[in-house]
């Protein structure tokens, strides 16, 4: 068997067999899901129901405030600023006594400030009630009619449709594309860091254990470096596949729990009351539109690009990390000062990505997605918006070619630094010295 394969096998197995690898691979998705679940749970739970006493001497609201999850309204006449807390209310809503046409403001009195949710809710409720009252009073319209007209109007949305999708009648949801772009770009950023650092630590281990010279007397330094990079890359892919399987499994388990029949039933229930049925119908509508717009995303292209940019970016940076690992000795400060120039472009990539996700066609986003230092992250944030369309074919092709050329170049460059570096002990080399190693035959 080829020596490089033997090295790949060792690098791969020695990591995959570790308990820490197995634990982190299994626990990460579980922790992720648990974190999302607990945050959601506590956010929902934290919405308190505020009991608000409403004093409306002029009858401006006509007793028409609808209590909801967040706020319960009680119309009363005997509550005032001094006693509302004693009566068990958390706030007191005072309507101006002068009547609706005097432009006076309502006052919401509370001991401690109300949550923003409750405050917004009160504002909306009061505004809607006033509007309805005024329309029905001034135009003599039946309030029920107003409600139904409003509901129809609210049901109509503005859909963003790309020119290319008009013919097919499809719609595209930019927020879903943003989400996918953000997620995949961020994932690449994390993976570059995690596995790049793993390569660097592996090289440093060989150097500090003094096994490097033993091995390069049997194999070429290039084979040792590539074996390590490929072996760790395979570890990354393995971990990644396990995560996908686990997350899909968890996702299916959760969807199974919320059976589709139940959801359908709620949706089709006739005359769903506005008070209770509406929120459910809304969230169902959201789920449906999410599913629809997920379907509009060109998954083969997104997944293909993700794999390409993950591997290309990894190979591009892993060689650089290997070179740094070969140059430093045990001193952690040396490690920091030498890794900074490598990690900086990755961090810049993520900063540009955050901007490009909001405007994927800006000049900066375009260039950053072509230059290999940032392209794995930035291009990944643009691809979900559509290829061709947001990202023309030539841009994608150029970016891919440059990334491939880039990793061939960094591998070549770093192999030359590496073969000298792993045999050097003593003080940390300067960048100038490292460049000299490159030139050495």
């Amino acid at each position: 068997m080829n020596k490089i394969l033997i090295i790949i096998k060792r690098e791969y197995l020695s990591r995959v067999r570790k308990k820490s690898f197995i634990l982190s691979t299994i626990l990460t998705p579980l922790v992720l899901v648990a974190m999302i679940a607990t945050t959601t749970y506590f956010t929902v739970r934290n919405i308190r129901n505020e009991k608000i006493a409403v004093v409306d001497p002029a009858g401006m609201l006509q007793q028409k405030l609808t209590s909801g999850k967040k706020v319960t309204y009680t119309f009363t006449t005997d509550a005032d600023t001094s006693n509302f807390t004693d009566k068990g209310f958390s706030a007191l809503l005072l309507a101006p006594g002068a009547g609706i046409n005097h432009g006076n403001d309502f006052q919401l009195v509370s001991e401690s400030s109300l949550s923003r949710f409750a405050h917004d809710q009160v504002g909306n409720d009061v505004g809607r009630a006033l509007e309805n009252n005024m329309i029905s009073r001034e135009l003599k319209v039946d309030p029920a009619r107003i409600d139904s007209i409003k509901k129809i109007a609210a049901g109509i949305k503005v859909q963003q449709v790309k020119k290319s999708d008009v013919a097919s009648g499809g719609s595209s949801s930019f927020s879903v594309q943003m989400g996918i772009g953000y997620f995949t770009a961020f994932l690449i950023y994390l993976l570059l860091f995690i596995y790049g650092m793993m390569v660097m630590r592996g090289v440093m281990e060989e150097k500090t254990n003094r096994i490097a010279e033993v091995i390069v007397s049997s194999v070429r330094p290039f084979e040792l470096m590539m074996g390590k990079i490929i072996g760790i890359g395979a570890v990354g892919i393995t971990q990644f596949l396990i995560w996908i399987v686990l997350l899909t499994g968890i996702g299916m388990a959760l969807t199974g729990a919320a059976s589709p029949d139940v959801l359908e039933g709620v949706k089709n229930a006739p005359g769903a009351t506005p008070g209770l049925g509406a929120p459910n119908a809304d969230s169902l509508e959201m789920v449906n539109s999410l599913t629809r717009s997920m379907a509009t995303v060109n998954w083969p292209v997104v997944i293909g690009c993700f794999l390409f940019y993950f591997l290309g970016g990894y190979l591009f940076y892993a060689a650089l990390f290997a070179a740094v690992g070969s140059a430093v000795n045990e001193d952690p400060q040396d490690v920091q000062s030498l890794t900074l120039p490598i990690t900086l472009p990755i961090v810049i990539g993520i900063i540009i990505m955050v901007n490009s996700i909001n405007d994927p066609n800006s000049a900066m986003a375009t260039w950053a997605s072509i230059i290999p230092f940032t392209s794995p992250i930035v291009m990944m944030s643009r691809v979900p918006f559509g290829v061709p369309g947001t990202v023309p074919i030539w841009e994608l092709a150029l970016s891919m070619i440059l990334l491939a050329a880039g990793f061939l170049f960094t591998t070549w460059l770093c192999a030359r630094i590496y073969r000298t570096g792993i045999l050097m002990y003593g003080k940390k080399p300067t960048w100038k010295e490292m460049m000299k190693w490159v030139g050495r035959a």
Partner: protein
Amino acid sequence: MLLELRHLKKHYATQKAVDDISFSVQKGGIFGLLGPNGAGKTTLIRMITGIILPDEGSVIFDGRPFDPAKDIAQIGYMPEERGLYKKMKIGEQAVYLARLRGLGRDEAYRLTREWFTRLEMQSWWNKKVEDLSKGMSQKLQFVTTVLHRPRLIILDEPFSGLDPVNANVIKEEIFRLAQEGSTIIFSTHRMEQVEEICDHIVLVNKGQKILDGSVREVKQYYKEHLYRVGFERMPAVLEGPGFAVVGADTKSPTLTVRIDDGFTPNAVLQFFISQGAELRSFNEQLPTLNEIFIRLVEGTSPARSFQTFTV
């Protein structure tokens, strides 16, 4: 001739690490590559093993120019800066290193078992290197160096870190390998080991070869015609023709004398016998390699002082 170095040169940025060194190593036998720290030994060895390329000159292995890809399996190299994967199991590690040298899977396993049995290391197979003592891991290091039956074995300071018992085990193995036909290059600055082990030596200093020959030849070449004469009682008269006394020990009466040019040891014996002195012993005092070394290395004013050991 197993190995021949022809005019090897290697410069680093600031110094000439190896400056035109040529020598050859015969098949079989134990060859000593000696020199103070920083003399260029490691650079020289790295060129022999193909880890670095010489700037000029060539390495001829077994009659052909050295080709790392093909010939590396014939060489076992134990560097001075050596170590093993700390977290890897010992058996697997030995097999892994053997396979990197080009052995097949089954053969690597078989030879590892064989060596582990011979050196009583079978019980270590599933241990990790970090659980071994320093002496034990040195022993393992030696095994991994010679496991693949190389024709040329290069050992850089093989005994550093070994206790006398383990050093002896390794020494016996080195002799055994030499007897079985392996050629051994032994690099060190510990002279007493060289005298004990090596047949032929080369001394390098400041990147240049300053001595090349068999241990016997070298000692003869650098001898100072010193003899030790042992007496029952210290004779009264010490001045005689043809020699000069350079040292005396009154406790166990002995004299160290240097015989002048043109005279033989007989002159000394004749003089003391004619004096009526009762002789007990008479030996030639050959210089130790250590002495020769210090003399040569100091003569070439080394950049760094030479590490000396009493013999």
